[in-house]
């Protein structure tokens, strides 16, 4: 729940009031750090705090050293921690299990005895921020010297749980500016943004969720139009739920005068798939671009390599959402879509005419893009087999 709790409402109100009332701007960041620790401990508990503290200390120390090899080790360590907490059971059960069932059963038993029942709060987000930090330091960026600033980067309460994924070279100056220049306009903008976020979540997304939960299991029995309406509800649900969350995070930071990166820019207005990914979960897609796609070679390689890079980047992007095949497939689905779109003109017979058609009629490109994205949400939300059945049902077919 996190943001949808009375505790958070009261906490955010008290922190904002305290932050504003502090007589000196240089007291604001230590105060904020203390508040972030309280928030983190309240929602994550000791078991959730420990991994981020340990990993954070290591990443901070490695960053200070500026040693390229140490940075690489730090990145590997962070990735191992992320995989260990989040994917170990999945990898052991679904991958190892297919090849070596006995060994998989043993490792599953060991993992369930060793790992906590749930991964530490926000691990997917802070792990990506740490990787970004070390990657940039390794490339020569100035590391954060102040432990206080690093702590705030690591556990800044509005973004701790689900982003937006920050970049330290933007965030650190934003912290400084917030503490120094927070003003009345920030409070107005912050409160409006928070209200908008909760409106999206509580009024739209949650009501849609209840309706979707009711209708999705019986999708095949609905009239064709209602099936498409259900798909539209699913598409509206995810955007209002997640952009609502991002609005609350951005608004809560804005109350403190701190600007966070945006996460959404009208994704359902996108006219093609690259455009969609430039508008959807922007802090993640840009991370994937900068720290997976480009290091793999980006677009400065052969067509085939480029397509493979997109494919790999999006498969990982899908898996980032959770240790399940349908997430991986969702990522691959988008990777395939992007690769196809980039190489449309290579398709025999239909490629060139299709390319011309999309160029001549942009609304057609928009419609195809949204159709592709919306059907993709079925893979995102439902187990693969059910998603397949639902997709067929949209076209009047029954599996």
């Amino acid at each position, binding site marked *: 729940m996190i943001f949808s709790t009375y505790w958070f409402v009261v906490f955010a109100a008290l922190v904002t009031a305290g932050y504003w009332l502090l007589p000196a701007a240089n007291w604001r960041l230590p105060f904020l750090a203390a508040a972030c620790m309280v928030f983190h401990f309240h929602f994550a508990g000791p078991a959730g705090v420990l991994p981020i503290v340990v990993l954070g200390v290591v990443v901070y120390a490695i960053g200070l050293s500026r040693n390229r090899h140490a940075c690489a080790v730090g990145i590997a360590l962070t990735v191992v921690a992320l995989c260990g907490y989040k994917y170990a059971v999945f990898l052991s059960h679904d991958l190892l299990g297919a090849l070596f069932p006995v060994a998989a059963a043993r490792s599953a038993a060991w993992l369930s005895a060793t790992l906590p029942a749930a991964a530490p709060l926000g691990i997917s987000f802070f792990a990506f921020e740490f990787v970004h930090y070390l990657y940039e330091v390794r490339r020569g960026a100035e590391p954060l010297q102040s432990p206080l600033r690093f702590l705030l980067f690591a556990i800044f309460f509005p973004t701790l749980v689900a982003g937006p994924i920050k970049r330290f070279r933007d965030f650190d100056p934003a912290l400084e500016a917030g503490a120094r220049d927070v003003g009345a306009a920030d409070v107005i903008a912050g409160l409006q943004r928070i209200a908008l976020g909760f409106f999206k979540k509580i009024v739209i997304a949650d009501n849609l969720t209840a309706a979707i939960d009711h209708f999705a299991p019986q999708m095949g029995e609905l009239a064709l139009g209602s099936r498409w309406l259900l798909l539209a509800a699913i598409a509206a649900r995810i955007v209002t739920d997640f952009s609502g969350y991002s609005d609350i995070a951005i608004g809560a930071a804005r109350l403190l005068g701190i600007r966070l990166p945006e996460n959404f820019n009208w994704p359902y207005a996108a006219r093609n798939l690259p455009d969609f990914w430039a508008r959807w979960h922007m802090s993640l897609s840009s991370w994937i671009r900068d720290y997976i796609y480009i290091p793999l070679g980006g677009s400065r390689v052969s067509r085939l390599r480029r397509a493979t890079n997109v494919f790999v980047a999006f498969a990982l992007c899908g898996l980032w959402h*959770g240790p399940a095949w349908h997430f991986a497939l969702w990522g691959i689905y988008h990777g395939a879509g992007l690769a196809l779109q980039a190489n449309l003109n290579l398709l025999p017979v239909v490629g060139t005419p299709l390319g011309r058609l999309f160029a001549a009629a942009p609304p057609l490109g928009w419609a195809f893009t949204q159709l592709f994205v919306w059907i993709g949400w079925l893979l995102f939300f439902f187990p693969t087999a059910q998603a397949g059945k639902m997709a067929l049902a949209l076209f009047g077919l029954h599996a």
Partner: protein
Amino acid sequence: MPQSYFSSGRIFKDFGRLLGMFALGLVVGVFFHYLLFRLGLPVQPFIYAAF
């Protein structure tokens, strides 16, 4: 200065802005009141908070 402020019509513009902001505050206040009620009923967890 005050004369030009009044005669230029800026006072009406500023008053309009203040009134608009007050009205927006009213709307946000109603929503916050509802939000406090709604948070006590079952709410769905945020999708991305689970990731």
